């Protein structure tokens, strides 16, 4: 880049001289997408992987997901709120789902935490049948030296292939 380009850039921003290195972080971004086609094989096959592109410098992502699993009251759907970082052992989620035991027992919430050693990050609610597939891992990883993704891994606990079915809103904090 030419010298004058260097100088032109800060002139666009008032008070640049008061900004430190850490202030030049990436802009937050909001990503909405869905996946209704990923075929996840049953265990003992490996998890189904869904990569969602995020900015290369992303450090923290919060995300919400919606399934098609109907909860017991009112027709709402199962879903979760979660936090993911570049570490695969830091993700934590809060899920809302149904007990599947009986109508009267209804809905409930549960928290899953990788720091606590949780096997999964959700109930089994993300298949096209509304059951069988759990979110197992969520973390940020490099695909190439120039691209980073939010990697979501899903485990199919059924005896046959299942198709993923979920909607996500992921927000890159920085």
């Amino acid at each position, binding site marked *: 880049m030419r010298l004058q380009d260097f100088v032109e850039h800060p002139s666009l921003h008032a008070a640049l001289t008061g900004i430190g290195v850490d202030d030049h972080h990436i802009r937050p971004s909001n990503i*909405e997408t*869905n996946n209704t086609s990923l075929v996840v094989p049953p265990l003992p096959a490996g998890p189904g992987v869904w990569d969602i592109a995020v900015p290369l410098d992303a450090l923290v992502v919060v995300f919400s997901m919606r399934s098609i699993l109907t*909860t017991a009251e*009112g027709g709402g759907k199962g879903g979760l709120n979660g936090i993911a970082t570049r570490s695969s052992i830091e993700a934590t989620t809060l899920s809302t789902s149904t007990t599947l035991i009986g109508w009267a027992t209804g809905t409930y919430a549960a928290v899953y935490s990788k720091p606590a050693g949780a096997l999964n990050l959700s109930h089994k609610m993300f298949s096209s049948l509304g059951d069988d597939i759990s979110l197992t891992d969520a973390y940020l990883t490099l695909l190439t030296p120039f691209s980073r993704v939010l990697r979501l891994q899903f485990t199919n606990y059924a005896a046959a292939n299942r198709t993923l079915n979920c909607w996500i*809103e992921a*927000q890159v*904090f920085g």
Partner: protein
Amino acid sequence: MRLEEKAKFVTAHGLVVTTPADHHPPAESWKVICNGLSIPPGTYDYRVALVYAGHQVVKVILRATLMVDTQGHSGLYAVGGNAALTSMAVISKGVEITGYVTSYMGAYSRLHGDAWLSQIGMFGSFIALTDLFIDGSDVVLRFSNVAGTNQDLIVYGSGVSK
């Protein structure tokens, strides 16, 4: 500051790989207090004016006045972006429905095509949250009154945008 000093400063901070958009405004937090605002049938935009424009993400936790069986109030957690119809909400605790033992929970996604982000009646009789997004330097909490007459909007909460 001399020209070469400016250039040195910029280089030292790695600005060469950033754009003006990277110098985004700081995060803001705000509260929602609406105790009985009469709104007409149809949609009503409750706007929160931000200090800065250019925010990209918004999150709110909204509380209704309906009691749930653990003596708390019903409410939800919702997230949105800088465009309508992309928001999502996960109800952390809904209202107990008479006749059933349990309380209500559910996830809603406007991206998925859900019409609502909450139960109808959660934020006043016949009133539901239907969308959440950033519009310029405003946060918009879009409610819908599905009754044929004016209804009182009742909602409290906190939000953050960045």
